[in-house]
C-alpha cells in the first residue's frame, strides 16, 4: 500500500481526519463542499511513508459538479490505493451508497464510521461487526475531531481489500447492484 484516499460525502469529516493522519493544515469548515480541490500529505504506516489524499466530498461516483469530478478522476487515477470511505455515523444508509459503489468498482475499501459522537447523541447505534460481516471489508468507528478511534483505523488499513459485490448482495438477500440502471 502506498496511497490512502479519503473519500466520502460532503461534510462527514474527511478533512479533519486528514489533518489527524497527515498532520497538515487542511481547511475545515462546517459547511459542505469546502474541499473542491484536494490536499495531499503523508503519514507513517508500519514504518513506511504513505501518501494521504483528502478527496473532495462526493455523493456518488457519477459526478454532478466540479468537486465530484475531481474526486472521481482521482479515484480512477489511483487504482491501487487504499480507499477510506468516511461515513457520517448518524446517516449511515446514505453513506453506504458510495461505499457500495467503491466496492463494486473493485477498490480496496475500509469503512470509517465517523462522527460516532453525533450518532450517539441522536441515539443511533450501529452494529459495526454485522456491517463488517455483510460487506466483507473492515469497518471502524471514529470521532475524528477528538482523535478517537484513529489508531484502530490506521492499524486496520492494511486489511482493506476488494470485496465482491455479488457476495454482499447474497448476504443481504437482495438482488441486483447499487445502480438500478444506467
Amino acid at each position, binding site marked *: 500500500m502506498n496511497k490512502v484516499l479519503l473519500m466520502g*460525502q460532503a461534510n462527514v469529516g474527511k478533512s479533519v481526519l486528514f489533518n489527524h493522519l497527515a498532520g497538515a493544515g487542511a481547511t475545515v469548515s462546517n459547511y459542505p463542499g469546502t474541499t473542491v480541490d484536494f490536499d495531499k500529505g503523508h503519514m507513517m504506516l508500519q514504518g513506511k511513508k504513505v501518501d494521504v489524499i483528502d478527496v473532495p466530498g*462526493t*455523493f*456518488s461516483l*457519477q459526478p*454532478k459538479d466540479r468537486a465530484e469530478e475531481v474526486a472521481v478522476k482521482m479515484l480512477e487515477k489511483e487504482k491501487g490505493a487504499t480507499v477510506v470511505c468516511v461515513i457520517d455515523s*448518524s*446517516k449511515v*444508509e*446514505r453513506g453506504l*451508497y*458510495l461505499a457500495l*459503489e467503491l466496492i463494486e468498482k473493485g477498490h480496496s475499501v475500509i469503512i470509517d464510521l465517523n462522527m460516532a459522537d453525533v450518532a450517539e447523541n*441522536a441515539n443511533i447505534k450501529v452494529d459495526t461487526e454485522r456491517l463488517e460481516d455483510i460487506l466483507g471489508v473492515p469497518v471502524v468507528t471514529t470521532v475524528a475531531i477528538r482523535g478517537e478511534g484513529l489508531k484502530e483505523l490506521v492499524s486496520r488499513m492494511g486489511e482493506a481489500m476488494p470485496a465482491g459485490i455479488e457476495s454482499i448482495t447474497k448476504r443481504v438477500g437482495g438482488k441486483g447492484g*447499487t*445502480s*438500478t*440502471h*444506467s
Partner: protein
Amino acid sequence: MEKKLSEMKYEEEGIVKKIRGDLKDRIAGMGIREGKEIKMMTKQPIKGPVVVAVDRANTSIGVGLADKITVEVGK
C-alpha cells in the same frame, strides 16, 4: 394522493413513488430513492430549491429536479 415533490407543502410528509429514470442514479447517492419516506423541510420562493429530509438527513434539491419526483401523500 400522488403529487410532485415540488408541490408538497411545508412539513408535509410522503413516500417517494416515482423518480424519472435518468435521474435515479443522480440522487440515489443523496438517499432519495423510490419507497423512501420524505418530508418537506423548507421551500424557497420564486422557484428556489427545496430542502427535504430523508432518513434524518436534510438534502437540498433544485425545484426542477423536485418537479420530476412523484410522491404519495396523505393516506
